[in-house]
């Protein structure tokens, strides 16, 4: 058995065996293709083939080489799968998780979920005429879904870190220090964050990557929230800050993902039972989000330099760090 097959043919063989075992009625797979992008994790699209017709599926798994020493920000795949199940139960639009991989499956760590039809590419969502209705609906949906995320019952979920504001800033300060490469803007930002920590809040589930790009969107709006790998228990305002930073607006002037206004998302979130929105705390989390984005860019480079993943995109993304630096300065100076 291959420990972690990587070629399409190897994945196809192992995946066919998994599907036959795990999905009643399926006898094979078709159309297997690795999806581009996806950042840190691998996403493969395919159809389960059985008597009832094709079943659109996604295999999401950790690459064999994710364990570069610097990469300490992702929850395990099994935790992610359990979070999706719990989120779905709390009313968060989510794909249906069908199977969590076991070591004996020979595909590494990951899970199978049903493939939700729709668009995730942010610029298409912001531009194409067929998503005009979605754009009008998404701001309020973002607020309501975030309130639902914060109602998710996380008791008993393994390996879900608890990171309130102070701990999270300390974690990313440690990540920055470990690079031993000066970015004076980051030093100024970390100091500002340490001086403006919000008071401890009632801890809730934080998605951690809640933004345009991680929503599967149809003409009707958000059909599913995906990519829970940066999730943790933390501050209720954190996801609002991440949602609004400039990099996720994709050249649009609208602060919420390029499609909406801040006050509209705050109102929908509060109306759906979210915590009272403190604008200053959201601003804190926007500055933090810019820092986090910049340091994730650096972590991609670390993976590239470690030799664990030669993908050119990982090297290139390092030269996007300056985006986070100017966004920090546009907020603080």
């Amino acid at each position, binding site marked *: 058995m291959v420990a972690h097959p990587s070629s399409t043919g190897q994945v196809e063989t192992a995946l066919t065996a998994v599907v036959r075992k795990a999905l009643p009625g399926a006898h094979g797979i078709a159309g297997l*293709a*690795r999806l*581009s*992008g996806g950042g840190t994790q691998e996403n493969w699209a395919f159809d389960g083939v059985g008597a009832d017709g094709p079943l659109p599926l996604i295999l999401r798994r950790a690459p064999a080489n994710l364990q570069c020493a610097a990469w300490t920000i992702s929850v395990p795949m099994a935790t992610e799968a359990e979070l999706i199940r719990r989120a779905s139960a709390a009313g968060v639009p989510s794909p249906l998780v069908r199977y969590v991989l076991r070591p004996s499956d020979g595909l590494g760590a990951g899970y199978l979920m049903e493939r939700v039809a729709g668009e995730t590419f942010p610029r298409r969502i912001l531009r194409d005429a067929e998503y005009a209705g979605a754009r009008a609906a998404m701001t309020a949906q973002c607020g309501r879904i975030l309130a639902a995320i914060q109602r998710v019952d996380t008791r008993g979920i393994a390996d879900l870190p608890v990171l309130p504001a102070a701990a999270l800033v300390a974690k990313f300060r440690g990540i920055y220090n470990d690079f031993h490469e*000066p*970015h*004076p*803007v980051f*030093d*100024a930002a*970390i*100091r*500002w964050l340490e001086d403006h920590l919000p008071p401890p809040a009632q801890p809730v589930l934080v998605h951690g990557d809640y933004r345009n790009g991680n929503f599967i969107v149809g003409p009707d709006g958000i059909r599913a929230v995906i990519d829970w790998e940066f999730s943790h228990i933390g501050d209720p305002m954190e996801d609002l800050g991440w949602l609004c930073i*400039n*990099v996720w*607006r994709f*050249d649009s002037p609208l602060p919420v993902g390029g499609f909406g206004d801040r006050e509209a998302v705050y109102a929908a979130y509060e109306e759906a039972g979210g915590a009272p929105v403190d604008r200053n705390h959201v601003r804190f989390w926007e500055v933090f989000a810019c820092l986090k984005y910049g340091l994730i860019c650096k972590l991609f480079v670390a993976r590239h330099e470690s030799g664990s993943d030669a*993908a*050119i*995109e990982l*090297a*290139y993304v390092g*030269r*996007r*760090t*300056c*985006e986070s*630096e*100017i*966004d920090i*300065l*546009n907020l*603080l*100076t």
Partner: protein
Amino acid sequence: MAQNKPTAAQLIGAVKAFLEHEIKPDLKGNKAFNLMVALKSLDIVQRELELVPAFAAAERGRLVAILGHDGSLDDLNAEFARRLRDRELGIDDPGVAQHLRATTLEKLAIDQPQYSGYAQALARDTQ
């Protein structure tokens, strides 16, 4: 060393033209995506070759003014970062915010001149 022609920038231009015209049309999916990233990376290298000498001199000059002594750019920048971290310098001190903005705009001019935040900052700083 005075290297002969073609210059490094010319060689990169030739490689870019080859990739663009002879390789790109044959690629699809993930490989086409990676080629686009490769071309954008070569754009960065071309801009860096052209712009870094002047930018580095300007950055070093600003750091000398803030820190009050001479040194190599790497040493001055490391000291500047350490003093921000240790709270010996703050973003409100004379020249600090202006230097951070100028240096970041120079990085953006090389790395991501299309970025919307760059245009926003330029519009503000040239007002």
